[in-house]
């Protein structure tokens, strides 16, 4: 039992070692199993301090909060050398369809295949299978409607893959709405074809919006 005031430094060293050997993000609770005497807020404080230490020291390693845990990763600045070392290119990225499907699942989960297909306008069976295989999505149950279709949601690996600490870190979907509001307000009543050519000359922009 050394003096507990200085323990903070040793706690940090223990956590540092844990993070070093871990392959996936380590949740606070997991650290708590090792540092039994500490509660989660104390651990969190220590990890955050350690994180700051790494940042200020400008090491090639950083500590990131990812997928509900903490993870030691390399600083992005060194990606170039690491790629060379690991003999890899920029790596396979997910395809457009995969990303679209994931986006829908991430925001709409739990969601059925039919619901995804309605939004994307195409069959997503193959994409879902691939995403399941990659572990990026999970089956979360069945929807209690006719046919009891499967419900899909994102997994912890999803967060890790995209470097997110939690789903809440995703920008709100409303952020992606561009002309959305305009639509609700004004579906123009005169169809641009067929009808009412006479109206076109008159200046009635303001009129159009009202309905």
């Amino acid at each position, binding site marked *: 039992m050394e003096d507990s005031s200085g323990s903070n430094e040793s706690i940090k060293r223990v956590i540092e070692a844990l993070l070093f050997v871990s392959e996936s993000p380590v949740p606070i609770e997991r650290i708590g199993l090792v540092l039994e005497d500490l509660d989660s807020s104390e651990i969190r404080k220590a990890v955050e301090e350690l994180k700051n230490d790494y940042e200020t020291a400008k090491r090639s390693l950083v500590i990131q909060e990812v997928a509900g845990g903490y993870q030691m990763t390399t600083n992005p600045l060194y990606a170039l050398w690491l790629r060379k070392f690991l003999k890899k290119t920029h790596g396979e990225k997910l395809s457009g369809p995969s990303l679209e499907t994931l986006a829908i699942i991430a925001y709409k989960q739990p969601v059925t295949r039919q619901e995804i297909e309605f939004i*994307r306008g195409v069959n997503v069976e193959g994409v879902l299978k691939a995403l399941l295989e990659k572990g990026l999505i999970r089956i979360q149950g069945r929807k209690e409607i006719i046919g009891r279709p499967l419900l899909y949601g994102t997994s912890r690996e999803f967060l890790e893959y995209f470097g997110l600490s939690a789903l809440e870190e995703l920008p709100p979907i409303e952020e992606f709405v561009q002309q959305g509001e305009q639509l609700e307000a004004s579906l123009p009543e005169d169809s641009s074809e067929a009808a009412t050519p006479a109206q076109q000359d008159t200046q009635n922009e303001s009129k159009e919006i009202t309905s």
Partner: protein
Amino acid sequence: MGYKIKLELFEGPLDLLLFLIKKEEMDVTDIPISQITQQYLEYLEVMQLLDLEIAGEFLVMAAELMRIKSRLLLPPEEQPAEELEEEDPRAELVRRLLEYQKFKEAAKRLGNFESTRKEVFTRRTGEILNLSEEGGEAYFETGIFDLITAFSKVIQRLPKKILYEIVKDEFTVEEKIHEILHLIVTEPVLYFSKLFEKAKSRLEVVATFLAILELIRLQEIVVRQKALFDDIEILRNTEKVQPKVKENS
């Protein structure tokens, strides 16, 4: 039976519609339906011309476009002002397009997250596992000269008397290709030396060797070795077949 290429450019009908809208600088909320229908159909025609496989969804959308178009052409129904405003026939389509666009943008954002994350390396990721799959030993790809060296060793090792039996057996490269492909399905790693062990004649050895070269050319297999002059290992070229997936621990 020609090849059917799946057009990746447009993932689906909504994607194609958004593209056309953007290209023609149309207003999503006020789509000139006959113009877009015409262009949409022209694209389908080109796709057909190129013998691309057109997914059924594209045709369903074509029908939907024509349905909307015809409804717009019909005079508005003379109905008591029950529903004060009859909904624009395009409304449903517009809603879907906007909804889809939203998720397309969200997908782009996910792509950015992905790129950012790819700049970061962690302990023992899938990639590192690929570098050293078994017990952390590094491999390098075997060059053609290493193959030839190994080959000549095999030739030298052949017992002499067997050479007289050449006339009896006939081996084609094609047969050997099939044989290797079959072997490699069941066994993850084939050893160069083992592959030749049961070879009975010089001709068979040659055929086997040529088969290996051909399979490398076809990107069906890769050859590698732990160290120079070490036994050459033959593996399936899985990279070509499917992207590496990070193992779930």
